[in-house]
């Protein structure tokens, strides 16, 4: 693509890396549109629209009230402006908040009833909505069993969930995996207990708006001592024009359970920007573990910066139980504007949070992303590995907060952020915030060794690397492993990230 072909590559950047970035940040493959009859709520947002969305989802009264009070709050809030992002003012009244394919008016009984046009859409995206094994014939996927893996998919199209695969099989294991609208109807006790308990309605401008107008999203409940028998995933597709997508995801991992969850996102290519404001809440009880991976590939806008998705997302995991664990992995290649800080509240003793991120921005894309690690419990650990890669005129900011509270005795954080600038018109920024309120905890930046395997360290140093080089090498390797473990059927692109070396990187 033009933006990259005449790229002035800086010296020291490896060719392999440039190639990988070219492929990844190259022509957008998902920009086509599905021709389908839609039904819209009137443009704009007000209490009537909020009630309408609630009604469309056949929600109980308490949910409608919850939304309305969120809306009331939102009206009093101002849009935040602290991020290093620069975009034209968003007119929140000039877009649709609810768009549903007409064929979805009556909820399909099963996947066989789903409008073939919708099924075709997901097939074209590489996400067949069939209950079949996903074949593992993907390079680098050696660890997967040869006969394939099962991945359950919840497919969200504009404002509604089109269908969820493998529900029956999951139910046998006691796992609930359905759209959030279904969960509100079918499992109100769980939704009531947990919704808004991690990201309160009052959390921030976009989260508050989402609380008022979210239309669909996914719900996951893993019962105690259960290992979810397959990978779960949600695929978000924005199709309708001038429509915002506001999805809500709620994941509850009960005591001693485990689940790996993945989300993917794409949208058609359009000249006008579109809004996407999601909220993801994860609750992790004692000894439970959640892996949450995102392959974000929203339409990024064209070479001139026209169009694209404005992606304002609030994601937070609450490690409530002792020894609970969460791992966020994100590959961000899309969106015109990204505002997103998946966070970990490390409340339980010995709980652990990890964050691995690769954000690639090109042309006029802007990303302000990072994480928050809030250490509340004793002996909590967190690890942050973030890589920003910028080309064209893009701007990439890492914004991270690590905070050690007085009771978080003996807690540890390790942070490593790199940025790679390909070309000379892009920018990279790092904004770390660190607060340590007890003296037995350590926050480590880059050149420290404590969480890296001693044997590996010695091996590297015996070969001549100093501690700093050795840690960087080992941690990078680890992050690559994490990326490689992503289910590739969602994004073959992530494979190519593995080829990216950050040689020639700054900061």
């Amino acid at each position, binding site marked *: 693509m033009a933006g990259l072909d005449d790229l002035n590559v800086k010296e020291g950047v490896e060719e392999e890396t440039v190639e990988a970035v070219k492929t990844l940040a190259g022509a957008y493959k998902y920009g086509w549109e599905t021709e389908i009859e839609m039904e819209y709520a009137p443009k704009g947002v007000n209490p009537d629209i909020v009630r309408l969305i609630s009604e469309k989802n056949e929600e109980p009264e308490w949910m409608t009230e919850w939304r309305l009070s969120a809306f009331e709050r939102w009206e009093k809030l101002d849009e935040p402006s602290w991020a290093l992002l620069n975009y034209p003012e968003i007119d929140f009244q000039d877009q649709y908040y609810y768009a549903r394919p007409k064929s979805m008016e009556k909820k399909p009984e099963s996947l066989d009833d789903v409008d073939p046009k919708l099924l075709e859409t997901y097939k074209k995206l590489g996400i067949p909505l069939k209950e079949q094994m996903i074949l593992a014939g993907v390079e680098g996927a050696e660890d997967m069993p040869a006969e394939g893996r099962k991945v359950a998919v919840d497919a969200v199209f504009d404002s509604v969930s089109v269908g969820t695969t493998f529900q029956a099989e999951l139910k046998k294991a006691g796992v609930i995996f359905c759209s959030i609208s279904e969960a509100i109807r079918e499992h109100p006790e769980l939704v009531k207990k947990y919704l808004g308990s991690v990201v309160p309605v009052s959390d921030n401008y976009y989260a508050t708006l989402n609380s008022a107008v979210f239309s669909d999203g996914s719900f996951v409940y893993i019962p105690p001592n259960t290992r979810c028998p397959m990978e779960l995933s949600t695929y978000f597709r924005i199709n309708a024009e001038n429509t915002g997508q506001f999805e809500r995801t709620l994941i509850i991992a009960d005591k001693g359970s485990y689940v790996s969850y993945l989300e993917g996102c794409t949208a058609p290519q359009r000249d006008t920007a579109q809004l996407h404001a999601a909220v993801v809440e994860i609750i992790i009880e004692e000894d439970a573990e959640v892996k949450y991976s995102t392959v974000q590939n929203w339409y990024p806008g064209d070479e001139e910066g026209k169009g694209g998705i404005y992606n304002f997302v609030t994601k937070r995991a609450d490690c409530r139980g002792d020894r609970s664990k969460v791992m966020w992995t994100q590959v961000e290649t899309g969106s015109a504007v990204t505002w997103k800080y998946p966070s970990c509240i490390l409340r339980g003793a010995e709980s652990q949070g990890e964050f691995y991120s690769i954000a690639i921005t090109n042309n006029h894309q802007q990303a302000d992303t990072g994480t928050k690690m809030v250490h509340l419990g004793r002996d909590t650990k967190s690890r942050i590995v973030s890589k920003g890669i910028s080309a064209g005129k893009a701007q990439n900011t890492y914004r991270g907060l690590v905070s050690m509270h007085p009771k978080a005795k003996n807690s540890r954080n390790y942070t490593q952020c790199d940025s790679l600038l390909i070309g000379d018109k892009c920018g990279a920024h790092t904004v770390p915030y660190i607060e340590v309120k007890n003296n037995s905890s350590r926050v480590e930046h880059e050149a420290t060794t404590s969480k890296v395997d001693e044997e590996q360290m010695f091996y590297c140093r015996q070969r*001549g690397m100093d501690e700093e*080089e050795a840690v960087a090498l080992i941690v990078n390797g680890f992050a690559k492993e994490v990326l490689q473990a992503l289910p590739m059927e969602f994004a073959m692109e992530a494979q190519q990230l593995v080829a990216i070396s950050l040689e020639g990187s700054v900061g």
Partner: protein
Amino acid sequence: MLSIKGLEVKLEDEDKQILKGVDLEVPAGKVHAIMGPNGSGKSTLSYVLSGRDGYEVTAGSATLDGEDLLDLDPEERAAAGLFLAFQYPVEIPGVGNMTFLRTAVNAQRKARGEDEMSAADFLKFIRAKAKDLKIDADMLKRPVNVGFSGGEKKRNEILQMAMLEPKMCILDETDSGLDVDAMKLVSEGVNALRAEGRSFLVITHYQRLLDHIKPDVVHIMARGRIVKTGGPELALEVENNGYADILAELDA
């Protein structure tokens, strides 16, 4: 070249003495072998020389070309020319073998005040060395030692040695786990590196390796000391009679 005098070493966290006065001289250009019963301290000696954590030197000294080794960080020892082929090579997931080696080569060059090797030169260099050791391109791309067979790991150690061109090479049981052909390859790799200014300390349990890599001197280590030193015939003697006689002499 390498000069060890009265080296006594204990574990850092435990009151356990492992090396109890090691004396050893390896002159430039020579190949010395160390044999000895399991647990006698051979690997410990190699770790202490290369600066691994967890040991405390309580007496004695070790120098490389007159430079005190024990004061240096592991990477400084490496830059000074000390190389250890590990008995158990370490796996580093996600780090390509090639990236690893290139980082190592350039780190040493930087430490010595030399220019970095260009990507093209490095590629040429590593391809040639890998070919000699029958290491294929795939193994160069794979993460360091991850999923390598025992023999592949050992060959990979020799590849690293060939790339880093150290002065003092310590090989800790590089022959264990090698099939006959691999043993030949590895030995040829070592022999190709034999040079005036380069010395070897080869730790092994078996005469086999010493058939290929002819040592100038053989030492026997037992109970934390060098207890006997001789020519290549000493290795044959051990091969035939074991350590019983030598140990009996010690007890006497």
